[in-house]
């Protein structure tokens, strides 16, 4: 069974990537909101927000990237849900293939699609005046954090896709995640927030991830925040993965 795992997963990943290239609107619609927020904050609110030296777009970009990924994974849940509903999932499960490849294909597709979205968001930010002198290693570290964040959220999407009763249910889980950056250091420094809100903002995953990416892009020495960010991503990944696999096993036996 496992002998074909890589080959089967590759074939199935090719299939779902083809779904994306046939409906590019799924990438475009997931990008509209983050890019809209970026324009709104850079040109409308940004002037009134004090973040220290440097253009506001530099401060904003990490949070926008996380929003783009959070809105992108709603389609991962949706695509998996459609496979479950249409019976093609069951067809794959009834074939002599590496069965878990069906899930991994969705996960890999999600990773590729969200990395493409993130690259587009960075491109738009460059047009808006974003500049960074960060070297290749720092950029690779940023890409690594974003990939880990994508994987963690993707396994949450898999739970929703496997278990949802309706297409809305398969994608609605992403809304709270999309808005999490608003109560974090993504748009404004947490120092101005009142006590309990500030406590929440400083101790939720988005803040540490945003701060780490910001430090990397600003060529500052990485602080302990990076380890907190990685711990959050890996922790969410493990819990979501375990949940998703237990639901998956229940569905196939």
């Amino acid at each position: 069974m496992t002998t074909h795992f890589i080959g089967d997963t590759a074939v199935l990943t090719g299939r779902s990537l083809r779904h994306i290239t046939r409906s590019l609107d799924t990438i475009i619609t997931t990008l509209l909101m983050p890019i809209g927020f970026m324009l709104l904050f850079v040109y409308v609110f940004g002037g009134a927000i004090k973040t220290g030296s440097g253009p506001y777009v530099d401060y904003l970009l990490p949070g926008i990237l996380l929003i783009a990924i959070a809105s992108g994974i709603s389609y991962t849940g949706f695509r998996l849900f459609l496979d479950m509903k249409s019976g093609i999932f069951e067809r794959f499960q009834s074939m002599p293939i590496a069965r878990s490849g069906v899930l991994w294909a969705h996960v890999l597709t999600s990773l590729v699609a969200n990395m493409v979205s993130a690259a587009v968001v960075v491109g738009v930010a460059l047009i808006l005046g974003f500049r960074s002198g960060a070297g290749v290693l720092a950029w690779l570290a940023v890409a690594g954090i974003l990939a880990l964040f994508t994987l963690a959220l993707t396994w949450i999407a898999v739970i929703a896709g496997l278990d949802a009763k309706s297409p809305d249910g398969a994608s609605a889980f992403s809304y709270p995640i999309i808005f999490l950056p608003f109560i974090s250091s993504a748009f404004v420094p947490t120092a101005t927030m009142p006590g309990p809100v500030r406590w929440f903002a400083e101790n939720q995953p988005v803040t540490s991830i945003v701060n780490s990416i910001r430090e990397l892009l600003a060529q500052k020495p990485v602080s302990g925040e990076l380890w907190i960010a990685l711990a959050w991503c890996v922790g969410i990944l493990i819990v979501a993965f375990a949940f998703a696999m237990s639901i998956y096993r229940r569905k196939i036996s």
Partner: protein
Amino acid sequence: MTTAAIQVTGLEKSYKDVKVLRGVDFDVERGSIFALLGSNGAGKTTIVRILATLLRADAGTATVNGFNTQADAEKVRESYSLTGQFAAVDEILTGRENLVLVARLRHLEDPGAIADELLERFSLTDAAARKVSTYSGGMRRRLDIAMSLIGNPPIIFLDEPTTGLDPQARIEVWQSVRELASRGTTVLLTTQYLDEAEQLADRIAILHEGRIIVNGTLADLKKLLPPAKVEYVEKQPTLEEVFLSIVGDGGKAGARGKVGADS
């Protein structure tokens, strides 16, 4: 290896406290068409899903191609192909891409050639490059069955293959099933249509309230009723015959050749 392609003994399955199967036994001979007849909710699909290793039975054993469905699930999946109640095709891909996908997953050489041959055999060549979302119900079902034949599995499960199809599409599916059996494939078919079982099956089993209550050839089943009386009845055409002769399909000849233009 045993002679029977499928052997089922004492199969039981409950969902919560509803007993769906209460001890089902039957054998299916190699190369035959076996029809499992029953009304909606009789448990036909449950049996198919257990045989297909997609569901675990609470009690009893089932072997497919000589392999136990619990102990040798992997071998079982290499032995059969399932066409479920709803056409399990990828709507966003084209018909040809669907076939190529399955051929690749079965690790066969030259998936393209396999796809082209099946498109030809199921009269889908003209529609090969179109997205499946544009296909008619009959075309979808034919593609679905074509996908099941890739890799020539010795056993095919067809779960209500003609439910929801129009009369022409139904005849096309029947034609495909007969062709399969003539090539030596064992077919297990579930249906709620009596005429479908009568048309196709070598053996018919009637599933009722979780048990097989009758199992035999059509002739056996007919013997169960009082002997035939001779009556003189004017032979009126059935509505199906009228419909098919008006739309010009020549009845039993099937729709091969003109398919693809019909959606």
